[in-house]
């Protein structure tokens, strides 16, 4: 089944909608010295939604975001934000978009309060109001106690929060978040998710990139899956999951050596190949109907394959990704670092 098609019809924008899209990107391209980092990506983000760009390291997520934020030149294609051409009006775009990068982009030499104050002043906010905004944002992000400390003493989570706070100074209607929770512990991550949901409740549109599939699942209204600079699928998290199969049967083989026998047996029963992780002896079987799980299990017993654990669940986006791109989500870091430069 072609999931890209599904995404277009099921989750695509209504073309004759009266209002402007928050982001309209057509055929974006970026080449870094022969390596095509972004290869014709279309994105349509509606106002008021959280749109997730999902993909492994080096897929082109950050590059796409940086092009839309006027931080990188767009090699080919067209991009508009709230109807404003990105290439033609970079100064206007910078007033509409708040960018929070993968690496905290705050000033190491200043305190948290000084950072917020300075970024406010730079954007033409008068000194008394800049002070008030700094105080408000520090309170909102739970940074009051650390307000006077140099950033060097901040934890990773505090830096991220300050970074996001700095993006919100002028309350931009569109926020770009580049991997907002990469490297954060689970608790801080949950707090960040709440903050992001809060932004949308306040009327913001959020475009975020992530390599965490559950993050896209938790946060995003719609998701574009990107791999090697191309969009491989788009839709709501549920649509994408349904596309892979109604449910997934996960099997842990007692003996990883029996992997190939198990794969053959499943193929005989369902007519399609399961996904095998040979090292762990894990088998992932997409099912169009949950009750076919019984058929698979019976056939495996008959084939003498011993199983140590079984579960049937809605497929996770991990499986979606696997099914869409044919490889696991651990992309090579080499292109990843090049992209981030």
């Amino acid at each position, binding site marked *: 089944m072609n999931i890209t098609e599904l995404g277009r019809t099921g989750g695509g924008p209504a073309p004759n909608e009266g209002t402007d899209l928050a982001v309209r990107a057509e055929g974006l391209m970026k080449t870094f010295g022969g390596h095509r980092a972004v290869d014709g990506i279309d994105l349509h983000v509606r106002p008021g939604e959280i749109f997730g760009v999902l993909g492994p390291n080096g897929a082109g997520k950050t590059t796409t975001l940086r092009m839309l934020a*006027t*931080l990188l030149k767009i090699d080919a294609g067209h991009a508009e934000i709230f109807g404003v051409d990105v290439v033609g*009006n970079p100064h*206007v775009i910078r007033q509409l978009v708040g960018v929070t*990068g993968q690496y905290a982009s705050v000033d190491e*030499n200043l305190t948290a309060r000084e950072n917020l104050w300075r*970024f406010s*002043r730079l954007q033409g906010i008068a000194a008394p109001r800049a002070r008030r905004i700094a105080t408000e944002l520090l309170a909102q992000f739970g940074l009051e106690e650390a307000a006077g400390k140099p950033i060097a003493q901040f934890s990773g989570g505090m830096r991220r929060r300050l970074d996001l706070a700095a993006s919100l100074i002028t309350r931009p209607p569109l926020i770009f978040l580049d991997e907002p929770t990469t490297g954060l512990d689970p608790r801080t991550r949950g707090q960040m998710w709440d903050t992001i949901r809060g*932004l949308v409740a306040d009327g913001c*549109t959020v475009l975020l990139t992530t390599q965490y599939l559950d993050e896209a699942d938790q946060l995003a209204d719609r998701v574009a899956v990107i791999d090697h600079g191309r969009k491989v699928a788009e839709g709501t998290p549920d649509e994408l999951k349904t596309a892979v199969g109604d449910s997934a049967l996960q099997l842990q083989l007692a003996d990883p050596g029996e992997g190939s026998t198990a794969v053959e047996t499943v193929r005989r029963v369902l007519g399609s190949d399961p996904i095998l992780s040979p090292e762990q002896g894990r088998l992932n079987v997409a099912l169009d109907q949950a009750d076919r799980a019984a058929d698979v299990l019976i056939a495996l017993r008959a084939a003498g394959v011993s199983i140590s654990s079984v579960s049937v669940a809605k497929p996770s986006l991990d499986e979606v990704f696997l099914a869409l791109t044919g490889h696991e989500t651990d992309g090579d870091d080499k292109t990843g670092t090049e992209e981030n430069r």
Partner: protein
Amino acid sequence: MSTLIAPAREVVTAADRVAGARRHVSMGETLGQTMMMAWRALKKMRRNPEQFFDVALQPILFTAMFAFIFGGAIAGDVESYLPLMIPGILAQTVLTTCMATGTQLREDMEKGVFDRFKSLPIARIAPLAGPMVADLLRYTIAATLTFGMGLVMGYRPGGGAGGVLAAILLAIFTGWSLAWVFTWVGTIARSAQAVQGISMMILFPLTFLSNAFVPVETLPGWLAAFVRINPVSHLVTAARDLANRAVVSGEVAWTILACLIVMAIFAPLSVRSYKRHM
């Protein structure tokens, strides 16, 4: 959490924001943003006092060293070498100081915060020009210490306080304009180390192939020809005339002209290459 502050800050629709957005940065805004960036650079200097080592130590060290090493050989004795040498050290110190501008810019650009500067609706030149405004303080310290050290060693400038002040101002202006060259190097080089290397290659010929430490007459003809067109020579001669004789010679005009040309070339080049870095 965020709803706590919502009443205090108006919710603005995207369409209003697009309509209200400014299309360009005005001159006044550019100036204000540059001063904000200068404020940041000053804060940074205050918190990293080691940045003052070069401007503080070099004038003291070099003045003492050069006076005792070259003094006897070039001018007969240390005292009579000082009026020749102090303006030379002044030029050299100011040039070394502006070299650090490029290195520090490069270091800064490698940090995440420059990404934010780029993503903000501010003049592209502000993050470059801001630190250079703050550097005026470093030039002032370096120039003042050079003359101070000279006075301690027995230098009695014939131009008086006025002449010395004028020489210092000219040196600061020259340093500030030539710093655009190093800023440009800072935006094109791949690393801070590379900036340092390239800057040294520019700096050494400029300072040593000048009349800063030796009289031009002692040099072979081909070398003297280069020394005569070197802008640093003009600065040194102008500073000597000002500090030793309180004379505003034509050399002042040549120095200022050379500086303006350097700025007119390298300021736009720097901004262009900074923008390309995005």
